[in-house]
Every structure is written in C-alpha cells, then in structure tokens.
C-alpha cells in the first residue's frame, strides 16, 4: 500500500525566512508525485507534478525537488500570502492506475 508522510505538521515562519517542507513516500513504482496548496475552506490547488528522481520544478517562490524516497518543497523568502496547507500526493503503478495517495499536509503560517 502506498504511503506518504509529510513533515513538519506545522511550520511558522517570518516573512522572508526561507525553509523547506518534506514529503517522504513509499510506493510500488512511482508514476508521479504531486504538490497541492489548500487554503482554508477551499479545495486543493495544483502546484507541481514530478516524475523522476532528480527532477526540479519552480513557480514563483516555490521549488519542488524529488529523490527516490522523498520530495522537498522549498519556499524562498515567503510572504504572508504563502500561508496555506501544502499537500503531497503520489500515484503508484500498483492497484488503481489513477489513485492518488495523500499525506496529511504541512500547515504553513508566514507572519509579516
């Protein structure tokens, strides 16, 4: 069974203080790893898909990287509007072809 563990559960940063969120995964053959952002009272919003170890993707202050066992979401010089829950999900090759397995998320708070 695919498993995703995200850490830390919660992270509080000052505006401009860079940091990283971790997503460790166990999957029977990784098809893809997804990062989503979820604001309170809203559905998850797609950020990135990573397909293979060594891949990196960037969007504004966010950069996602992937190894064979984990992914990192690096946040550079965060702003208060980056405050949200960040969800990691994997799609493996076993079982349902389309099923995403999500972690519990990291709640990021950026103080001005």
């Amino acid at each position, binding site marked *: 069974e695919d498993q*995703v563990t995200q850490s830390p559960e919660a992270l509080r940063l000052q505006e401009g203080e860079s940091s990283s969120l971790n997503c460790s995964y166990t999957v029977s053959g990784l*098809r*893809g790893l*997804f990062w*989503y952002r979820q604001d309170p*009272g*809203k*559905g*998850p*919003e*797609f950020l990135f*898909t990573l*397909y293979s170890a060594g891949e990196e993707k960037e969007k504004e202050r966010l950069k996602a990287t992937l190894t064979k066992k984990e992914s990192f979401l690096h946040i550079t010089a965060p702003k208060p509007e980056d405050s949200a829950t960040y*969800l990691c*999900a994997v*799609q493996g090759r076993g*079982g*349902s*072809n*389309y*099923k*995403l397995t*999500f*972690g*519990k*998320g990291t709640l990021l708070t950026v103080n001005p």
Partner: protein
Amino acid sequence: EAGVAQSPRYKIIEKRQSVAFWCNPISGHATLYWYQQILGQGPKLLIQFQNNGVVDDSQLPKDRFSAERLKGVDSTLKIQPAKLEDSAVYLCASSLGQKVLETQYFGPGTRLLVL
C-alpha cells in the same frame, strides 16, 4: 475556463438522515473522483469514474455510500444513513481521462457536519 462545481457548500444533518452532494466537472473531463477529507487529514479517494463507468470504488463504504454518474458528466454522491464519523469535507475532482498520469483539479468541497 470554469472549474469543478460542487453543491451545496455546507450541510448539517442529524445522524441516520440521508444527504446528497452534487458535482459538475470541468467541461471535457472524462474522469471524475470523489474524495473524503477528514479534519487534519489528507483527501482519501472514495470512488473514481471514467465517463459513466466505475474504475475504483474499493474505499467506498458501500453499505451507506453510493455514487452515480449517469450521463458521464455530473455526478451525485449519497450517504444513507449518515453516521457521526461521516463529518468531513467531500471533494470532487476531475481530469481529462486521456492518460494514466494526469493532473486532478479539485472543486471547493462540501462541508458536512453530522450531529
């Protein structure tokens, strides 16, 4: 482009009552998903449709949950009878349905509270 639409946005019911949620996916998306997100948890897949056929319903509590997508477009998820532990956000997502690995786009969710 319009996103995934869901209604109602909020619902409060007594235990043992029934409730139904509606979802309209992004136009042209053949694959539709229903997820359950309990407070503090990540979304968990309940059921997945490809057009109007079920691809995966292995995690759907079939004794009380049912879902349909009769015309291959919008979908309804029903709970009957509801239990306290069904309190959660029910998220609908859709994807193109052309490849195995695709981005899933989520709606705003329906927040259910069972008293």
